[in-house]
């Protein structure tokens, strides 16, 4: 019993900060549907002031303001797509974690496949060249005899 109490006490400091944080992140109005939509859209949008975090992940003031604004726009009747378009108009394609498919992003989308193709081509030519380098060297009579002797020796040992 004492042990369990001690364990609970030890865990307390770890559980406290998460409680506090949960309070900070609480910004949504009562509507759980809108809350879900705000979160899913902000997952798709980059927090511009915090490198490598989405608007949903970040607790920066910028992200909080943005989430509040997204929520307000959704409560005003905008759908998810309109909200994303609103952000793209102001902050550019860069705010989207999934870049759109267009001329300037072709390299972004196809770059990895081009690299893969180059890799396969290099591998293929290397293998071909190797194959050409390998020549059949016929054994001389002397070598044949030696090979036969070695084989015989080996099988003899096995039997013994």
């Amino acid at each position: 019993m004492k042990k369990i109490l001690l364990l609970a006490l030890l865990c307390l400091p770890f559980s406290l900060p998460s409680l506090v944080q949960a309070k900070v992140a609480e910004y949504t109005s009562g509507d759980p549907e809108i809350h879900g939509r705000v979160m899913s859209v902000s997952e798709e949008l980059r927090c511009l002031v915090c490198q490598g975090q989405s608007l949903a992940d970040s607790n920066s003031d910028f992200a909080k303001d943005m989430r509040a604004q997204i929520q307000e726009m959704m409560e005003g009747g905008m759908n998810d797509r309109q909200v994303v378009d609103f952000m793209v108009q102001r902050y550019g394609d860069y705010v989207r974690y999934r870049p759109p498919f267009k001329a300037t992003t072709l390299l972004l989308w196809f770059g990895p496949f081009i690299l893969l193709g180059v890799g396969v081509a290099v591998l293929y030519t290397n293998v071909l060249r190797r194959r050409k380098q390998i020549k059949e060297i016929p054994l001389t009579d002397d070598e044949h005899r030696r090979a036969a002797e070695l084989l015989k020796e080996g099988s003899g040992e096995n039997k013994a």
Partner: protein
Amino acid sequence: MVRYLLPLAIFVVLAGFMWKGLSLNPRDVPSPLVGKPAPQFQLSQLHQAEKTVSRDANLGKVWLLNVWASWCVSCRQEHPVLMQLARTGEVPIYGLNYKDERQDAIKWLADFGNPYLVSAHDYNGRVGVDYGVYGVPETYVIDKQGVIRYKHTGPVTPQALRETILPLVRELKG
């Protein structure tokens, strides 16, 4: 020969990209608004709340819109540069006081000097969002037709002013 040159070439290319990457500012996000009409706004003036300031009132002249706030530390850094520019009178500077308490902002200008012809009080930051503001300070160069021609993110340095902003302003003035 190729066997040795190829890795070297790959290394040089990679090093080139990385070297370039070192000098890029990751916070510098290209604004999609450059080349587009500056978003409309109508806000109350910072000093005279009953008066308004709008984008359209500035049609026909080249002007700078500088986004600032009393809580913004880098604004202090660029402030002397703006003061200097205001003294030359070469281009009118309008302020967009972003998410700031009115008294704080007025006090800040009283303490450090006011380079702005007029500051607009964007208390809830909605006009800032329309302009794609994500870090303060930011400075926009807006032409006679009300089109954003350039956006500078971060404090305006004397160098940026001399080499980019002022030449552009002179060109736009014609």
